[in-house]
């Protein structure tokens, strides 16, 4: 069982390790002690991104296999696994490493095309996964209802993204020679509206559950979902002149944004690891219970 080896602690070490490594590479250059290690930074980001989404993919598949009878929960984790797989591909084709092979690749129309061809299905899978989680809990009848204020917050979040799309002066792929890029980019960004709104549902569920391991999973999923939206909005607000795009700043100078995007991908891995760890804990407790019963009543 993979989950027994890839624990949330391992994932947390991956996240912290990557940030420390990036800080260790970036800060000396900022203070003028060394030159910028761009290639090494790009290498670290790419490897870490691939690693994080691979963990999310494998653990999500393992979790989905746990729901043999509960088809909505199974569907939810399969969709989250598909999202991780597509994000993994997107991370690979969007790697800053390609900048060293092809000048200006990161801002080129080709990269925009590849990016958006993967972003749209990835976001659709994520949205489907979140809706399946929502429905899976709703039909259990545990009284987890979405209140009026939640609906209002969801509508507010969705409206914020749609307003941004409608009134924003330009999108990075607005002038792309690839027609499909011009259409898929606004669609991919628009999907952030319902996805972020669903993130609020996860928050409500986590609050309703109180404590517990499942609530932790909900919270990490919420971080994964909402941090993406927050970063797009922040980037848009802080750099209104720059063309809007889903995840990547215009160049490597936007170091802080790069690091925060790394947190996003580790959040996906952390949600899957926490959920998989829940099964490991349950299996361990079951083993202890059986051992205790066998000890009291010898077979």
């Amino acid at each position, binding site marked *: 069982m993979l989950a027994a080896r890839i624990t949330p602690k391992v994932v947390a070490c991956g996240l912290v390790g990557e940030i420390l490594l990036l800080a260790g590479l970036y800060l000396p250059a900022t203070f003028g002690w060394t030159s910028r290690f761009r290639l090494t930074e790009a290498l670290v980001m790419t490897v870490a991104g691939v690693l994080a989404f691979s963990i999310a993919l494998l653990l999500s598949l393992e979790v989905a296999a746990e729901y043999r009878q509960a088809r909505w*929960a199974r569907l939810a984790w399969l969709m989250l696994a598909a999202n991780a797989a597509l994000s993994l591909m997107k991370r690979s084709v969007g790697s800053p490493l390609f900048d060293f092979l092809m000048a200006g690749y990161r801002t080129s129309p080709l990269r925009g095309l590849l990016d958006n061809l993967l972003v749209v299905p990835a976001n659709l899978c994520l949205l489907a996964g979140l809706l399946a989680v929502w429905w899976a809990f709703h039909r259990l009848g545990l009284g987890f209802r979405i209140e009026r204020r939640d609906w209002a917050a969801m509508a507010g979040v969705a409206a914020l993204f749609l307003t941004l799309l409608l009134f924003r002066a330009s999108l990075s792929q607005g002038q792309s020679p690839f027609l499909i890029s011009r259409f898929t980019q606004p669609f991919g960004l628009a999907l952030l509206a319902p996805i972020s709104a669903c993130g609020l549902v996860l928050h409500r569920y986590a609050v309703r559950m109180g404590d*517990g391991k499942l*609530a932790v999973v909900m919270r990490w999923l919420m971080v994964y979902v909402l941090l993406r939206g927050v970063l797009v909005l922040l980037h848009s607000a802080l750099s209104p002149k720059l063309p809007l795009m889903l995840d990547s700043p215009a160049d490597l100078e936007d170091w802080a944004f790069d690091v925060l995007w790394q947190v996003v991908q580790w959040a996906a891995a952390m949600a899957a690891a926490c959920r998989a760890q829940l*099964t490991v804990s349950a299996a361990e407790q079951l083993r202890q219970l059986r051992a205790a019963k066998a000890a009291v009543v010898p077979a």
Partner: protein
Amino acid sequence: MKHGIAELEWNDYLDGRATDEVRDRIEAHLIGCLECWEFYEQMSGATQELLEAGEEARQGLTLEDRQLHAMLRGVFARLGTTEAGAAAPSCVQGQLNLLETVLAPFCGTQAAVSALHAAAENSPAHSLDRVTPDNWEPFLKKLTAIAAAMCGETFAGLVWESGQF
């Protein structure tokens, strides 16, 4: 009482709590009575096995404070019951408390309570107050199904086995 040794005296002797006078009397008798010697051997073997099994169970089953607290609540609820007819409901209450302590660390405290209520409402008991040993199994099946939908099959297995009387 058999051969002048009361059951309570045997128990104390086997547990190592007998007074010097009782111990000397039993040991003097054991030297000459084969029947009591065999009885002593059987009982002391069983006592030893029970002690070892108890120790093993204590080491194998780690309990969190919250679980211990809920179990103690169940024990005290049973101790507080004076009427003979109330023994079954208190036993059910103890099991419900135990299930809550199994569910809560995984699903959260509030979700655990909601799951117990939902399982009862959708079982022949119709409410948590009316769950009895007679309708326990359909209630437990429903709860296991809810646990499976929330946290998967392994966790559902834990709930099912914890809920067995």
